[in-house]
């Protein structure tokens, strides 16, 4: 992973698209399921990084089982810091997490804020509807958390991929396809229009290397998958949306009415 590269230039196709493995002659259900598992793991990882602070358990994963894979893609934790003082690492990432994603002035990680300028707007309803359709409910752990949090949404993509893998595991291709459609739709419609651009913005402002790397990784994974899913025209549209200075609220009928105009 080239950390000096600030712009995204996704390659066509990719290993994270598990349905491609399904059509591969050498694959079959087992290979597609494995791909889906990998996809689930990747999105759950990204979701976990962004949804809440690093804690001791997650740090143990980062420095243990996940380490080789992370190193391979270039997400290298600062060994000296992590090993000499895990507590300090946890404290500094918690502080950065709060500054970057929670406290006033943060790069708000909510789609509502990105799209509408305020917390808890219609994008929340859309996220809730998607979760419910999949049989899930959003429940916050800290106050001030909403369903359209980028980390939660990424985790949801992972969860959908896992269901797809499960269905494949019992050779239920119809169900697997239904999960796939849900995942792709969610990715394209609810994350695609804003999340990669948001990652870029957040990365520029991140002061902690861990979050800079995680945000870059997330952005690139998203672009990669979006490019694989979207046709050319739609992809261009997504690129535009993510570059956008977001939508303008220039007319609000309700406000005019309330003002007696």
């Amino acid at each position, binding site marked *: 992973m080239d950390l000096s590269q600030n712009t995204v230039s996704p390659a066509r196709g990719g290993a994270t698209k598990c349905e491609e493995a399904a059509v591969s002659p050498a694959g079959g259900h087992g290979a597609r399921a494995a791909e889906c598992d990998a996809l689930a793991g990747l999105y759950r990882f990204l979701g976990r990084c962004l949804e809440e602070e690093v804690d001791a358990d997650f740090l143990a994963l980062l420095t243990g089982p996940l380490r080789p894979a992370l190193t391979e893609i270039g997400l290298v934790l600062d060994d000296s810091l992590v090993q000499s003082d895990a507590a300090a690492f946890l404290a500094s990432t918690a502080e950065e997490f709060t500054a970057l994603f929670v406290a006033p002035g943060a790069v708000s990680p909510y789609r509502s804020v990105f799209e509408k300028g305020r917390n808890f707007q219609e994008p929340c309803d859309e996220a809730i509807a998607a979760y419910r359709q999949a049989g899930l409910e959003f429940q916050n752990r800290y106050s001030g*958390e909403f369903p359209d949090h980028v980390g939660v949404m990424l985790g949801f993509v992972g969860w959908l991929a896992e269901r797809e893998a499960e269905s494949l595991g019992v050779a239920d291709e119809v169900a697997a396809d239904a999960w796939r459609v849900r995942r792709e739709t969610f990715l394209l419609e609810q994350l695609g229009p804003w999340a990669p651009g948001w990652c870029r913005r957040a990365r520029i402002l991140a002061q902690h290397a861990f979050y800079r790397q995680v945000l870059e990784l997330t952005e690139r994974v998203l672009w990669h998958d979006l490019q694989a899913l979207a046709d050319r025209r739609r992809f261009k549209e997504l690129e535009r949306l993510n570059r956008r200075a977001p939508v303008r609220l220039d007319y609000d009928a309700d406000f005019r009415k309330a003002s007696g105009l």
Partner: protein
Amino acid sequence: MITRNSLNLTRRGFMKLGGTAAAVAASLESRRLVAMEQSLGGKDFSAVTGAERQAVPYTCLACNIEDGGVAFVENGRIVKLEGNMDHPNTRGKLCAKGNAGYLHVYDPDRIMTPLQRTGKRGEGKWKRISYDEAATILAAKLRQVIDRSEREGDPAIRNEIVFKWGRNRTGGAVSRFMHALGSNTMVNHTNICESSKKVGLEPSWGPDIESCDWANTKYIINFGSNVLETAYFMNPNAQRLVDGVVANKAKLVSFDVRLSNTAGYSDEWYAPFPGTDGAIALAMAHVIMNEGLYDADFVRDWTNVTAEQLIAHLKPYTPEFAEEESGVPARDIRRIAREFATTKPATTFSYRGPCKHLWGAYQEAAIHMLNVITGNVETKGGYCLPRGMGWPQPEPNPPAGKVPSVLAKPPLYPLASHAVSTNVPYMIMKGEAKVSVWMSYYDNPVYAYPSSHLWKDFLTDESHVPFYVSFSPYMSETTELADLIIPDVTYLERHDPESMPSGLYPCLSIRQPVIKPLGGTQEFRQTLIDVIRKVDPDEALGVRKYFAFDTVEDWMRAHFDNIPGLKEAGGWNALKEKGVWPIYGKVDQETAKLVDRNGNEVEAEYGLHRKRLSASEIADAEIDVQGTIRKNGHAIGVSINGRGHVGFGTGSRKIEIYKEGWREYGFNPMPVYKRLASREKKPDELVLTTYKVNVHTQSRTSSLKVLAELYHKNPAWMNPGTAAARDITDGDLIRVTSPLGYIVTRAHVTEGIHPEVIAISTACGHDAYGRLAQLKHREADPEYALGGDPDVTHNVWWDDKGVHPNPIIRLAVDPIGGSQGWYDTVVSVTKAEPGDMYGDVRVSTEQAMKDYDETLRYAYTGDLHRAAHKEVDVDWDNLPKPALSVGH
């Protein structure tokens, strides 16, 4: 019979029919379709689905007027606010701030989870924690103080627990909490607000405010209030003032150093020199008394002075004297006095203009007297007592702390019944009091107080304030300095009992969560319950019982379920449904008056002081020589012509124009005019005044996009002659310098300002309060919003956030009323110097400390007090010793 063939289906025929029908159109109108306004109010519909939106009543707290509102909720989201048609004083209308208030709820810069400081104080480094963890931390800090107090057997130690608020509409929750902890150190904000008005009124007639019957009056003298835009009870008062001026053809005369929108709407506007309203009022009284235009019966029966005493007292206050002081022509003062006295009914209204000065209480007392001597008190269309309603506190209610607090009730200001909050940091920095835990609620002194930089220094220094917790949901200039933030919800997500005397119909109202607290946030009241439970986990301290509410709603029920009348109407449940009680009637769509079922106006009650005492009340009572009726040592009424009336809320139950309590401390017992230091300024100096605008509160609303868009920069108003003398033109960069230092701002050159005044509004120039208030998005990144706030990015077309004047405003305390003299700072104004940048602020903390020492010289023990009150007949060498008394 008409057949189809008989119709003349030509255009000419159509038009002819149309023309004929037009002539009788009124009688052909559909009786099903009504004008839109007639169906507005109380209902709202989704613009998308057409479904009726849920309407939840609440009480506004975008500012302190406490108007009744209705929130319309769609899909669990507040989509619109409007006035509650059932609220008798709000009558279905909110102001711009009230309409915009729901944006507070969804503001991305709102603090929605407790934050614990991780870096240095004020460095902006935080860690989020849960409400439970936060309550545990605070409880442990409080318990440490309590344990030390117990260990050392010194209850005074508990007063090291300080609670400071700017706005406390909790209906007693904060006092309950503090008293449970054993501390009396509750510090309000009232002395930066209108406290000297209150202290000018309370000893005069009891309550701290008047309630003018604007709608029914014929003549209004407005001293220094911008009632159509801001001021106390702005929205209800403004509505009724317009009713009075438009429907009742009342005359409105305004005295204001600045052409506010109220002054501009007046029939006559005069710009007196700042702080001279009292001289004008006294001169008017002089005219009225000397020309025999006063209400002799009222003065005789209802005051504690005689007409002769008044005439003698007012002798020096001739219109010519007032002209000399104020610049307002004597002939106009004379004419207005005559008009005021002979036009019935009439009323004055006054707000910060007269009272926010050293000795502001005298000015208010002088203005009040005009209504008294003309007999306009408690008459229809006159100057009425405020009408509020109380509610009981749930039992058991904790007793006050054992030891009075020097911070809450400073001994050098014995008459300042609303305390002297401005002095608190100075007192602590000088070692007069100690703090262990400082809590703040709706409070932003680092922005809102005079010499605001001093507060920043104070709160940053851990040796003065070892632990500071803020309950603010916004990262204000003050909350930035906290060690712990336990964010409250916004006023639309919270419970509070309310009653504001904002009109002539007394009522109770409530706040209730119109939506569930957003994102699992927690209301302050619940935090108090949680903290007390953690302070006293095993009930060993015996204070847990004061917070034995299973839910916050149970707490509300305990306030409201047993009030006679309301109980029968349904208690708390009735309030939840209507938001207000009682329901007096409906707002008539034509006249906007309150009407009953038959369409008759619901008359307010007048003459409250004349209410008769019952025989049982009078039984065993005694009447003194002045006519005061006393029972068991308490004054219960006043006897006039052999009849017992309840009278006014004073010691004699009469209006006390003569205030013996003032004399005891060497103040003049009568309303007088004292020349301020600013009146002696050098000719090339100016007096700096500030003002509020119609779409903002002092500090909190700058984060609301629609309001910030309407008003966001505050160039300094200067008169053309004043500007020209300094070679300043409109828009020029200027330096405004007081002894504290200087600010660099821009000039707005206008005729609408006294030539010796420079006026700068509040509400601008924030260094905190979210990225919109600070215009941070532009400074940091021109390409896109840092937080991806589209509205901020694209609709924020302005690049000027204004300059805040408070750092150069000097501390100056009215020794009677305790008020900050906001309008007493003398400045020099010049063109900006080379290198000056717009928004520069350079101020001295050392000078702020000197100002504190200087203002103490005016306190009743000070040398300047004595020098200014030589006329007072008191034993100067034996004034009462400064003493602690239990406040709150």
